């Protein structure tokens, strides 16, 4: 009993038990678990970025929960679903962006699929071959937000915020340019084509280029842009000259720009300024065209070799080009004349043009006055002529020259386009003269001459035959006789022949005779009286000697 009584103070222990019972430490474990779970949920909610939908043409390379959205190669989101759009014409990718990528919901944000692209300009996105495609993103600047975007088919060449300037170029056609074609300044790539499109009226192409900073400062108001695609082959007096910007521009095309060397008061061009895109460097850097003047020419000859684009020269200066070559039918004459349309740029005449304008008080915008001016030129002999520029290829060009001898032509100042009379081309003139000569030759009685000649020749032949058969044997006999005569003459004149001996004697006699004759003459010279009296008998012998001996 005492034991049990002593036991009764002990219920201190149940007190401990009750304390333990009230809160078991083991409940910390589920508490921690719940806290961790809650923190995960909270973290997830905090990290939850916006969800957007991007529409692409195809779902190629897009995989739900796999394809990432990257900006500067940092993942900013992930595709959570890829499904066909309601009209089944496109693919809608639902993208869950991270919290920090809030900027990418701006209305002008851009999204595109980055995949391996092999173009002439280079290879891009090669890493996606292994890693799979991803969606590239570029945040916009607008303040309005959007949930749905339309994905680009190709990456935009310029990302937002890149320093530089945009310019617009106008050209008649795009040529071989494309988005991404480089823009060169002094052969250094400084920018690229970012967009192009047809003009609203469809009569030209507008090309948007982006020049990176700091090189955008080199684009000035005077700057000329030209299409640097391909290779320029120039044939000059020095031979061939190839000119190209770079190998890649040969393939993908390119644009080059430069201000003319002498361009005073040049200002840096403002953003979005419009420029003209010239076809080549020479045309771009040439003085400005000025106002174009369309003229019509009518040739009565075939113009093989005259192409659209052939130069038009005025007194040797190129002032325009041929824009059309059309065949016409002349109802009255029943002939096929060639109508050639040309365009000339009077401003290309430079100083001559300005002086002319000043002297004639001419307003270049007044078409009527221009027609009258041209009319006066025509009266002074201005004629168009298709000339051969290259004898080998037969290329023709149009030359406007003053020909005072040209026959007068009535000029119609009201015709539009203004028509300039023509004269046949130089080569044609040459051909005509040649033809006349040939015709004259044709008219010669060559056949009769030939017949006569033939008869003469026959007679000549007969005569020669006669000569051979009759005259030649006689000649032979004569020659033999001559030979004999010569032989006898030879024997007569031989050294030991009596005739020769006699001749020597005769000659001696003759010598003596001549001596006595001389003595006689001398004697007679000194004694002329002896002619009358005869020779005195006492005459000394020495007096008979010639006087020269004295």
């Amino acid at each position, binding site marked *: 009993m005492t034991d049990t009584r002593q036991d009764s103070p002990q219920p201190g222990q149940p007190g401990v038990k009750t304390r333990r019972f009230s809160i078991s430490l*083991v409940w910390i474990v*589920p508490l921690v678990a*719940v806290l*961790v*779970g809650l923190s995960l949920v909270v973290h997830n909610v905090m990290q939850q970025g916006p969800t957007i939908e991007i529409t692409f043409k195809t779902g190629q390379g897009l995989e739900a929960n796999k394809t990432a959205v990257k900006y500067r190669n940092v993942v900013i989101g992930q595709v959570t679903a890829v499904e066909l759009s309601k009209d089944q014409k496109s693919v809608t990718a639902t993208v869950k962006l991270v919290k920090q990528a809030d900027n990418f919901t701006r209305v002008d944000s851009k999204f595109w699929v980055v995949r391996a692209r092999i173009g002439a300009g280079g290879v891009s996105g090669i890493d996606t071959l*292994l890693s799979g495609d991803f969606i590239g993103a570029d945040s916009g600047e607008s303040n309005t937000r959007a949930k749905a975007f339309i994905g680009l088919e190709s990456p935009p060449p310029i990302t937002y915020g890149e320093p530089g300037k945009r310019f617009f170029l106008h050209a008649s056609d795009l040529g071989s340019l494309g988005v991404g074609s480089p823009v060169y300044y002094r052969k250094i790539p400084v920018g690229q084509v970012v967009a192009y499109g047809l003009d609203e009226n469809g009569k030209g192409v507008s090309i948007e280029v982006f020049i990176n900073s700091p090189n955008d400062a080199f684009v000035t108001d005077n700057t000329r842009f030209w299409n640097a695609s391909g290779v320029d082959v120039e044939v000059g007096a020095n031979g061939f000259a190839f000119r190209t910007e770079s190998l890649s521009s040969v393939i993908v095309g390119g644009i080059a720009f430069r201000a003319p060397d002498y361009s005073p008061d040049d200002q840096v061009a403002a953003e979005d300024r419009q420029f003209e895109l010239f076809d080549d460097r020479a045309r771009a850097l040439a003085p400005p065209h000025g106002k174009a003047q369309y003229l019509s020419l009518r040739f009565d000859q075939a113009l093989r070799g005259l192409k659209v684009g052939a130069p038009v020269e005025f007194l040797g200066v190129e002032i325009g080009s041929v824009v059309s070559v059309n065949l016409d039918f002349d109802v009255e004459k029943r002939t096929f004349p060639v109508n050639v349309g040309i365009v000339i740029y009077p401003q290309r005449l430079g100083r001559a043009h300005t002086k002319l304008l000043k002297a004639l008080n001419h307003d270049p915008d007044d078409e009527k006055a221009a027609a009258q001016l041209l009319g006066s030129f025509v009266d002074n002999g201005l004629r168009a002529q298709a000339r051969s520029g290259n004898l080998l290829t037969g290329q023709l060009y149009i030359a406007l020259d003053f020909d005072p001898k040209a026959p007068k032509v009535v000029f119609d100042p009201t015709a539009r386009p203004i028509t300039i009379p023509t004269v046949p081309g130089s080569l044609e003139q040459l051909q005509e003269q040649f033809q006349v000569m040939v015709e004259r030759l044709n008219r010669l009685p060559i056949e009769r001459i030939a017949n006569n000649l033939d008869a003469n020749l026959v007679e000549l032949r007969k005569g020669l035959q006669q000569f051979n058969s009759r005259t030649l044997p006689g000649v032979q006999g004569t020659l033999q006789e001559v030979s004999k005569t010569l032989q006898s003459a030879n024997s007569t004149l031989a050294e030991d022949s009596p005739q020769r001996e006699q001749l020597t004697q005769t000659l001696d006699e003759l010598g003596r005779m001549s001596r006595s004759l001389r003595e006689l003459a001398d004697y007679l010279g000194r004694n002329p009286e002896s002619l009358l009296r005869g020779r005195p008998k006492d005459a000394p012998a020495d007096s008979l000697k010639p006087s020269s001996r004295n």
Partner: protein
Amino acid sequence: MSRPPRAAELNLVLCHACGMACDNSNQPHDCERCGAPLHAHKPDSLTRTWAYLIASLVFYIPANLLPVMNTTLFGSGADSTIMSGVMEFWEHGAWDIALIIFIASIAVPATKFVALALLLITVQRRSTWAQSQRARLFRFVELIGYWSMLDVLVVALVAALVKFQALGDIEPRPGILFFGMVVVLTMLAAMSFDPRLIWQRDKEQADD
């Protein structure tokens, strides 16, 4: 009733550590032989089991929602949760592997939750329903507990082995941590559950 006396009736308590039957008449705190604490029942069995079970249930959610593994092959990384892995294997025709993963990672923990909850509830209600089956169920829960770690081991092994830099790389993701926690906590719950409670009928016996 001719039945052998129960240990409680003889005031005997079995030491959990060395198995010695100690005299509980003066309520000693420690085993006479090895000094381990003596309890007539596992202490706080129901409370602890409930706590561990609830904690493991809480962790079971992120374990299945969060990715357990990140597979990077040729630069393209993909997170996979347990279920997505199962689906992937199934779609590729490896239904056997899919089944193994499904059973080990999803079915077994779920079974454990259900079984433990069932045991706890029936014990608290002092139900006498299907006692031997419930005892067998508890043994089964203890048995399959280890196999749930299969997933954790696979991820740990694969993550350690597959390190080919750019070619391929496998990294564990937080989901596997939670899954491991689930397994550990369910095992703790099973351990802290006292199967003797299944057989207890009398109120005074349950109190001690």
